[in-house]
């Protein structure tokens, strides 16, 4: 038998032998796969050591070795009452708990050639229940059930029915005329707010390693899917793309339900090379977060996700040299960029059917509340609320992203810009207040210095107070990294405040992108 600490486990495609839990229960059979997900699952169960059988070793012997304590016969005192049952080396019961040890007991065993007897370890020491549920979890991992949310949740989200746009509304010219002819655009939140399905960070507690891995995978998958969506649309193949858009939107909603904060982490992307795709994903996750704080229902949030994902689709028609230009744009180049709103409507025509809100988002997300935006200079009352949400998400995620001509700014600076734009009446304050509710003034995922000098990461907003989010302390008052992040809710610790927004590099902390969560 070989003891291996769980934190030393390495992936093995096909196990040569079985792996046991300290309870003697087999958690992995020979020939099964030990991959990163399985390792994370074992670690999440609180197990710190596993036991590999060795070639030729019998499992039942191994099991007894793990679950029994050997005792030399000489340790038995005749006449003493047993506190635990005694077994022989084959697992046969010799004497039951509570019995007094007969005076000739040791001698009779010795005559039979035995010099060792065994106690069973109590269940609280070997935790068989943990092993059984761990085995069930590992089976799930092997079956591939490791998405951001349980299968039933995803199935339910897939079934949400969206109201699709009329054929007329997919004709760009007619649509443009229709949108521009409206004197008020209003949509009411549905009866059943999606936010009710979302657990708060306090109810949920820190994320498990497995959950973090699932999120990392899901985000990578979504990014790959969005790249496919954009290249397919660029090639004029829109007709087949709806299921893939729905898949990404469904995953975003599932992510909201499971852990909206982890989902929000990819709202501050940092990838100038793949800007269109990362930016599109970032806008999607931020928009759905804002949407839930405005009490929209599941179908509304889903079409909001569609809209956010596709809002920059018109950029595909803007010449590449303008989109990726490193310097300041000339007035004519900027005019071409502004045309992407209308180009977006043209591109939507290639998708045979699309939720009715999407064209509004594509066309109107660059309008500003006071009428100073483009393409039409419309004021808020005639701009679709979803377009306002996506417009705000667009500004936030752009400021947070690294661009060819400037470094990424701090998420705090992005939030500050949104609030100041409300002060200038460029954005609708209700939309930004909704964003503050789920992101706080010090955005989820960002790093801050506190009034006592310690360093922390914002891990969740407190909707009651935008200035007092929930934190994970990462460094002490002397900027030394803590061995374990510690939760600190500023709502319950009013003597401490955030005094500075800082970069990750300002703290000497381990290189884990999800540290603190």
């Amino acid at each position, binding site marked *: 038998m070989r003891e291996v600490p769980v934190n030393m486990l390495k992936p093995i495609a096909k196990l040569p032998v079985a792996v046991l839990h300290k309870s003697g229960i087999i958690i992995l059979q020979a020939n099964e796969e030990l991959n990163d997900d399985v390792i994370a699952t074992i670690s999440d169960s609180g197990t710190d050591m596993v036991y590999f059988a060795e070639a030729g070793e019998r499992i039942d012997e191994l099991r007894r070795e793990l679950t029994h304590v050997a005792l030399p016969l000489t340790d038995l005192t005749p006449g003493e009452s047993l506190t635990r049952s005694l077994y022989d080396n084959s697992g046969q019961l010799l004497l039951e708990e509570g019995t007094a040890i007969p005076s000739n007991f040791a001698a009779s065993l010795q005559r039979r050639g035995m010099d060792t007897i065994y106690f069973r370890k109590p269940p609280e020491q070997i935790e068989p229940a943990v092993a059984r549920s761990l085995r069930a979890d590992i089976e799930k991992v092997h079956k591939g059930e490791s998405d951001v949310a349980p299968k039933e949740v995803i199935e339910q989200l897939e079934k949400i029915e969206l109201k699709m746009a009329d054929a007329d509304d997919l004709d760009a010219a007619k649509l443009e005329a229709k949108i521009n002819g409206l004197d008020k655009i209003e949509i009411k939140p549905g009866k059943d707010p999606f936010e009710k399905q979302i657990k708060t960070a306090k109810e949920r507690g820190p994320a498990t390693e497995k959950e973090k891995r699932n999120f990392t995978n899901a985000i990578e998958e979504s990014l790959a899917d969005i790249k496919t969506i954009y290249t397919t649309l660029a090639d004029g193949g829109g007709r087949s793309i709806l299921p893939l858009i729905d898949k990404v939107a469904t995953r975003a909603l599932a992510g909201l339900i499971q852990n909206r904060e982890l989902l929000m982490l990819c709202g501050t992307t940092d990838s100038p090379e793949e800007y269109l795709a990362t930016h599109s994903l970032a806008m999607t996750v931020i928009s759905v977060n804002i949407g839930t704080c405005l009490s929209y229902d599941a179908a509304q949030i889903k079409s909001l996700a569609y809209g956010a994902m596709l809002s920059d689709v018109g950029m595909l028609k803007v010449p590449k040299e303008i989109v990726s230009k490193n310097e300041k744009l000339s007035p004519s180049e900027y005019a071409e960029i502004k045309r992407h709103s209308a180009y977006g409507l043209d591109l939507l025509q290639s998708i045979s059917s699309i939720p009715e809100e999407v064209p509004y988002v594509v066309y109107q997300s660059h309008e500003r509340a006071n009428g100073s935006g483009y393409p039409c200079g419309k004021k808020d009352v005639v701009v679709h609320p979803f377009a306002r949400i996506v417009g705000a998400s667009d500004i936030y995620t752009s400021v947070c992203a690294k661009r060819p001509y400037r470094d990424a700014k701090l998420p705090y600076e992005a939030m*500050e810009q949104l*609030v*100041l734009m*409300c*002060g*200038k*009446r460029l954005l609708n*304050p209700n939309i*930004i*207040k909704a964003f*503050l509710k789920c992101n706080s*003034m010090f955005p989820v995922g960002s790093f801050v210095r506190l009034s006592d000098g310690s360093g922390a990461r914002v891990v969740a907003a407190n909707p009651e107070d*935008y*200035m007092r989010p929930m934190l994970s302390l990462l460094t002490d008052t002397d900027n030394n990294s803590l061995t374990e992040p510690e939760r600190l809710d500023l709502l319950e610790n009013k003597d401490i*405040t*955030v*005094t*500075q927004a800082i970069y990750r590099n300002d703290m000497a902390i381990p290189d884990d992108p999800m540290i603190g969560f």
Partner: protein
Amino acid sequence: MRLDGKKILVADDEIRLSQLLAMFLGEQGAIVETVHNGQDAFRAATMHRPDAIIMDLNMPGVNGLEAIRSLRMTLSDTPILVLTGYCTKEHFAQALEAGATKCVAKPPSLATLTDTISQLLEDAEEKNNSGESDD
């Protein structure tokens, strides 16, 4: 002293005036920070949580009204005293609508300023206390 230990943020692009105010309020025991535009005022208020803010209206970049509207989204209770050379009824009304607590014409008499600030701080404290007892 009447303003002992109170943190006051002064936002005014007239640097000489803001220095004068800082000196005067400092003599009353206040801890004063000065900034010269609306964006810096917003950031200083967010990070340093002053007990009161004195705000000019006419500032470059983000002006006083815009800064007050922004501040009211995140700091609903901090008293904001507007100090302005624009003293028409309309300007005062605009400032109050944006979320200012009180408006005083520029230049203020120093006695008036101390009285007004002390009063605003007292009111805020009272409001805060009554809020807590409601819990």
